[in-house]
């Protein structure tokens, strides 16, 4: 069964900081190359929009959600970061109270270490989060297993194919960016999310086109 454009949406709830950059890039690559559409709070940079409304809209439009709770830890101000668990709560609320259509919504919960979650979120004790250990390759393995099939219903390739494709993108990206007189480091997936995503989409499209030739 082919999924509609809306049903391709995958909402990503993860930390937006420099230490998470490699993991975030792996996440974006995996979702996109599998044929799904990344939805993320960074896509709307209009400061006039209220953040909560933005999150509500993204979750409402996404039947699949990916939540990385690996950095729910104390920040410089000695306070924990609650954004990721909060957005997971919103997604779970949508699934359970959002009506029949959203009851089919699914969620992937990722953590850094498998047994740490109950210590800070014991309400999720019955859920089975996937531990990635901060390794982008593990993230590709976990996310591709969660998506498991393309929106058209075809089985997705194994994790090694994702690793090879991602490595190629990382290898070629500086050369591609140089064509626009940009330094690859300037196209930060957080600070310059929209441009980064367009580069990635065009890379995947080009790969698809040349494979078909």
């Amino acid at each position, binding site marked *: 069964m082919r999924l509609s*454009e809306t049903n*391709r*949406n995958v909402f990503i709830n993860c930390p937006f900081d420099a230490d998470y950059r490699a993991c975030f890039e792996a996440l974006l690559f995996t979702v*996109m*190359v*599998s*044929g*799904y*559409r*990344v*939805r993320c709070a960074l*896509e709307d940079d209009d400061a006039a929009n209220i953040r909560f409304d933005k999150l509500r809209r993204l979750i409402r439009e996404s039947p699949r959600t990916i939540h990385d709770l690996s950095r729910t830890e104390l920040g410089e101000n000695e306070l924990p970061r609650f954004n990721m668990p909060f957005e997971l709560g919103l997604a779970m609320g949508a699934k359970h109270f959002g009506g029949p259509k959203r009851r089919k919504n699914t969620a992937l919960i990722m953590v850094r270490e498998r047994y740490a979650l109950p210590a800070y979120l014991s309400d999720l004790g019955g859920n089975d989060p996937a531990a990635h250990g901060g390794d982008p390759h593990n993230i590709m393995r976990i996310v591709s297993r969660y998506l498991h099939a*393309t*929106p*058209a219903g*075809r089985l997705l*390739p*194994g994790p090694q*194919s994702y690793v*090879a*494709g991602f*490595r*190629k993108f990382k290898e*070629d990206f500086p*050369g*591609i*960016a140089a*064509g*626009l007189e940009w330094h690859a480091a300037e196209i930060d997936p957080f600070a310059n*999310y*929209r*441009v980064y*995503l*367009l*580069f990635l*989409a*065009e*890379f*995947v*499209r*080009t*790969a*698809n086109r*040349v*494979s*078909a030739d």
Partner: protein
Amino acid sequence: MARARIRIGRNLIAEPRRNAQARAALRALKRAMADFEGVEIAEPAVKPERETARAIKKAVRAFYQKHDAVERN
């Protein structure tokens, strides 16, 4: 005129090397992404300005496609 001629000459010398690099990049791309052949890519949710989208598309294609010295001059 003379400067343009020198530029064309230089490009004709550099061109085979650049084309070979582009061909090699294209071959490696095909190899690395072969398992995703046929996966239909969803349009990104971000809406770029037309000029930005065009420039990015051009940059990616240029990286993998052969260069044409005379046309560029």
